[in-house]
């Protein structure tokens, strides 16, 4: 250590494109414990670039744990060892001098690797396009306070809506299931009066697209909840399953075209 900085060995996944094989590459860095994990990667990349070497590709944006852009598997855990934070909120004081850190992309069939640590998560958006909304046009809506919503219902809906769409749930799941992501959006609306008119149609549409896109099924290991940076509850999955079942029972003919 010098000036309180810590020395680390990094084993980072490098892969030049979706159709190329990847492998771990070794790097060494010295970093301030006050730096964030991504600032550590910024410093590494700046060093590589100044030597004319290609930097490690990774995505990030807000660096405040809310945009859901960043997402690395660190020492085997999506978003690293500290619960309920995104990768960008992880700080180097959580590592010790001389530690070796393994850094990988989120891995899932539905999330192909773009380059190094970047994966394509457009499958999540496609599920949203299928039904992740309340069908209201701009204008012509009632006064905001005309819809009364019990405080605890609103809070429960908010907790589901807090999902940042990062994909850690999929990366954590041995089946690469997207049930936590989909059920969070389904629940946000199922808990609110605004979501009732389309409640049963929505759940069927979203689940159908989810299944079509190659996400696995849920086997209730709850790994998704454990790794979710926003602590989205698996109770949302139970709620979605219930709604899906009700939708099927209500009308065998309600199969919707997507």
């Amino acid at each position, binding site marked *: 250590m010098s000036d309180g900085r810590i020395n680390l060995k990094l084993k980072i996944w490098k892969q030049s*494109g979706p159709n190329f094989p990847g492998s771990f590459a070794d790097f060494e860095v010295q*970093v*301030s414990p*006050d*730096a964030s994990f991504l*600032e550590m990667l*910024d*410093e590494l990349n*700046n060093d590589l*670039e*100044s030597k*004319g*070497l*290609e*930097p490690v*590709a990774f995505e*990030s*944006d*807000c*660096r*405040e744990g*809310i*945009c*859901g*852009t960043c997402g690395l598997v660190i020492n085997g855990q999506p978003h690293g060892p*500290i619960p309920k934070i995104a990768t960008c*909120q992880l*700080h180097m004081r959580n590592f010790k001098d001389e530690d070796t850190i393994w850094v990988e992309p989120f891995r899932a069939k539905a999330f192909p690797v*773009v*380059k190094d640590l970047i994966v394509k998560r*457009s499958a*999540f*958006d496609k599920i*949203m*396009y299928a039904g992740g*909304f309340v069908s*209201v*046009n*701009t*204008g012509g*809506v009632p*006064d*905001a*306070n005309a819809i*009364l*919503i*019990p*405080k605890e219902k*609103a*809070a429960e*809906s*908010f907790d589901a*809506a*807090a999902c*940042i*769409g990062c994909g850690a749930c999929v990366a954590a799941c041995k089946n690469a299931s997207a049930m936590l992501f989909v059920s969070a959006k389904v629940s946000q*609306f199922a808990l*609110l009066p*605004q*979501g009732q008119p389309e409640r049963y149609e929505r759940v069927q549409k979203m689940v159908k697209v989810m299944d079509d896109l190659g996400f696995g099924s849920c086997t209730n290991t709850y790994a998704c909840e454990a790794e979710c940076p926003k602590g989205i509850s698996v109770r949302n999955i139970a709620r979605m399953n219930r709604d899906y079942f009700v939708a099927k029972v209500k009308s065998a003919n309600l199969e919707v075209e997507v």
Partner: protein
Amino acid sequence: MATILNAKIPEGNISEKWTNHKFNMKLINPANKRKYQIIVVGTGLAGASAAASLGELGYNVSAFTYHDSARRAHSIAAQGGINAAKNYQNDGDSVYRLFYDTVKGGDYRSREANVYRLAEVSGNIMDQCVAQGVPFAREYGGLLDNRSFGGAQVSRTFYAKGQTGQQLLLGAYSALSRQVGKEKVKLHTHKEMLELVVVDGIAKGIITRDLLTGEIESHSAHAVILATGGYANVYFLSTNAMNCNTTAIWRAHKKGALFANPCFTQIHPTCLPVHGEGQSKLTLMSESLRNDGRVWVSKIKKDMREPNDIPEEERDYYLERKYPSFGNLSPRDISSRSAKEVVDDGRGVKGGEAVYLDFRDAINRLGKNAIEEKYGNLFEIYETITGDNPYNMPMKIYPAPHYTMGGLWVDYNLMSTIPGLFVLGEANFSDHGANRLGASALMQGLADGYFVIPYTIGNYLASDKPELIPADHDQFKKDKSGIEDLTKKLISINGKHTVDELHKKLGRIMWNKVGMARNEKRLNEAIDEIRNLREEFWKNVKVVGSAEGLNQTLERAGRVADYLELGELMAYDALERKESCGGHFREEYQTEDGEALRDDQNYSYVSAWEFKELGKWEHHKEPLEFEYVKLATRSYK
């Protein structure tokens, strides 16, 4: 002599202007709307709400984002809330009061008619978002809850915990998703706009780079909307997201769109202090914390004691002392400058660049649980980043660049000086004057996107009847090859300095000389230094990799190249404005007790700059008239 800009403000009493204008504007028959192509660049609050609303109306919309998904835009990080003049609290709020507060908060440098319209539609925004299923905070009776924000004495801020921006953006993203599903909006992800295509003086399309394949592409339309956010990353360290940049509006500026009030930047008072050289980004702590937190420093210079060892009588609660009526909820510019003052006086935390934000008294008064319920997630964020627990130890905060009030000049219809080019949200200059009040950015983004542009763009299409130019027109070819050449040039330099090194250097010049306090000497130095740095950039930047495929260094290089031009204009603008107002504080123009000294006689105008050639601009003015809010010294004492 400079041209006088025509803001096209409708006639009539301020409360009737928008209503009259909506009636007078031309309409497009519902069946004909599908014949029009509209490009929307950016999918934050303004862009997503505009794209969704225009898609609903029947237009063919192409929306562009450089992110992997429309949901990532930086609007998502807004924490505190959104203002709306609903007067649900029965505390005397009204459209007129929100209008008044916003004009005053902007230090009388905004356009009255625009601000009034913003206040007027603020209620509609809340109605819209609630109908979309945005889960706002509620009272036990099921009604919406409110909190207070800086610069206002009524509670008009609606919120969803400390994640209001996230919930509003996801609402707009939902509405956009619905239109994408219906194929009324074609969403282009991972595509960054690098050029505006102008044919015969009219905006006709854009050139983009696909960030995954490197392909440069042409897109044509009947009208182009830019909703690409602000440029606070010119300071390198800011609360903006890593990818926020000025490129879209800057390149439009170089194609003829005037840039208004570039020096009006907001330095947010409550951010986490800088930890070291390796820092890439600053984190904001919501202004809502100032509802219960008290800001203080020691009365003694270089006081090395731990905060909890400094007794009450040796603490200086400087905001409460200087501004007794607004106290800790004084507006952002005033709070930031006061923090700088005490730090310059050597009274910052242990002599450094930070002040305390203390919850001790609020915890004693309301109990730890009440504070946890209100601010729990913000306290957790603070502890995660700093390792300190704010329940036991005051937070350390310091101002940081956060928002830019300046942007492309637009008229009342939100159209720039290039016909067919509209600019929404933070990317335009229109509503916040020299200082934006808290919880007003979300309001403006959504007002522009949901409730203004759907009307005004129809009027443009119906009155001007613009033609669609094919994307293989000569001008598109010329602009496309221009961008390809620029890309090649950036890669071929292969010099000694990385992009980040050069960006950090620019950031330091901007922060030290075009930051919270400015003077003639330092502004002139800044101009020289920026020019030298720009020269150094084009001689010595090192961009590794190739133009094909994903190259994040190349993306950043293009953005920094634009900042190196914008920074100079910001300094010019600050130099020209020989007065202090809002976020623009010129040390030469202050009152005896150090308050901003505005000069309404000579500077009651919007500065709009026309790009001539690199480092040369022509200055235009839009005079500001205050018919309704009487010009007065802005006092929060």
